[in-house]
């Protein structure tokens, strides 16, 4: 299985552990990744709130680059990139005016033909739950995980067309396949406010508190995420959230790829588990998972 890979900016900086663990999991599942040459930022939130044309042009440049690699699909593991690439794709396919403007600006002829897929989707559909289960060398037994989907992975459903927008289960399916126990909780699709993280931090702390408090109250040992923005908000701002509300969570925020990676036999450093602000290593040791 070969895929063009669009890592996105954060995988090269604040979420290196997502990049490491993604590559590790893919290698072990026989998923071959080739980085899209000279990929650029997808524009994330700031482009689409400023200039619509820019918000479409940036992802399209990357999709076009993926197409020139003879790729008919591109894989990404960042929920924000996934969302922006898919949104741009849909507009290029369905909105003639935007398509003409963007094609003219970039001097290309793109019509939304490259399929955009998230790693969750690729593992579920191309490897399969059974295929994954067969490769498990260490079952994640005893680990209670709150799967946190956040916003952009499943919303808006008309664009994303992935999983259930109100009751998603793709991450739960993968985590339970490797032996972890996932909890039922209502905050799995609530927003963490990432786009306001630098500008209106107090809003973000309140949203993080609600999410973390509910995960904790329902007995989760850790939270699993599939988005670098969710991870950095819940991990980097967790101590601040605790201080603001006089609470104590100490909940490690792991990428789902790190948990899958452990189950597939990868080591702590290979998965970047040493790179978290809320250190997950004591928890994993206590559960005898490392």
């Amino acid at each position, binding site marked *: 299985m070969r895929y063009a890979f669009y890592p996105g*900016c*954060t995988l*090269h*900086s*604040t*979420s*290196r552990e997502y990049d490491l663990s993604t590559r590790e999991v893919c290698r072990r599942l026989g998923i071959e990744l080739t980085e899209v*040459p*000279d*990929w*650029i*930022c997808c*524009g*994330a*939130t*700031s*482009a*689409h*709130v*400023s*200039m*619509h*044309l*820019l918000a479409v*042009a*940036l992802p399209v*440049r990357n999709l076009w680059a993926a197409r020139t690699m003879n790729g008919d699909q591109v894989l990404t593991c960042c929920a924000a990139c996934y969302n922006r690439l898919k949104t741009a794709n849909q507009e290029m396919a369905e*909105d003639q005016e935007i398509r003409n403007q963007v094609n003219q*600006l*970039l001097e290309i002829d793109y019509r939304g033909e490259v399929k955009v897929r998230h790693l969750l989707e690729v593992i579920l559909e191309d490897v399969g739950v059974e295929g994954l289960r067969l490769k498990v060398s260490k079952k994640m037994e005893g680990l209670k995980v709150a799967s946190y989907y956040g*916003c*952009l992975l499943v*919303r*808006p*459903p008309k664009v994303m067309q992935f999983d259930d*927008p*109100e009751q998603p289960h793709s991450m739960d399916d993968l985590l339970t396949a490797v032996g972890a126990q996932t909890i039922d909780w209502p905050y799995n*699709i*609530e*927003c963490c*406010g*990432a*786009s*306001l993280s*630098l*500008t*209106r*931090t107090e*809003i973000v702390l309140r*949203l993080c508190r609600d999410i973390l408090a509910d995960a904790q109250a329902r007995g989760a040992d850790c939270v699993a995420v599939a988005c670098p923005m969710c991870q950095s908000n819940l991990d*980097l701002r967790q101590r601040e959230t605790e201080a603001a509300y006089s609470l104590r969570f100490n909940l490690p925020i792991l990428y789902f790829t790190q948990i899958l990676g452990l189950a597939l036999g990868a080591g702590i450093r290979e998965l*970047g588990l*040493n*790179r*978290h*602000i809320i250190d997950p290593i004591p928890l994993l040791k206590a559960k005898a998972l490392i």
Partner: protein
Amino acid sequence: MRWEISTSALRSDFVKQVEANGRQNILACYQCGKCSAGCPVAHEMDILPNQIIRLVQLGMKDQVLNSRAIWICASCETCTTRCPQEVDIARVIDALRNMAYRERRSSPEKEILVFNRVFVDNLASLGRLYEVGLILGYNLRSGHLFKDMLKAPGMFLKGKINPIPPRVKGARQLKALVKKIEAKERGER
């Protein structure tokens, strides 16, 4: 809150503009309020999401474009997902923000405007987002010089800060592209 509605507002083509730019049928909204009920940041807004739509329907451009609410929206897409009339509210809010951007309107949420500017400049000059540059640029231009600086040493030790900015082939063409779009949008640079 009290609003004065004028006949000129009611007769303006603001609703048509927003409908065209956002590709939405805004008049389909019958004010059920489901968008506001599910909005995670509604408690911070001066006008609620359903009120944004109502004001657009009534042609009250200044009240909408000068609101805090359009900038507080975190683009989580919950409203869009749940609208029974299939109005893409998040897309409407984007169209409004684009309009405010085009008209160079200021906002009481000036930090958010500064952040967006720094973000776009950052990606335009490097091709990829460089978070160190983003945070420093934001702090300098917003005047919150030391915001989040206490986190830097810990992040550096955990390997979360890359001291070297990204280098992408074709970054120069990208800068030209952003300039071109910017000029098309609001005739500047």
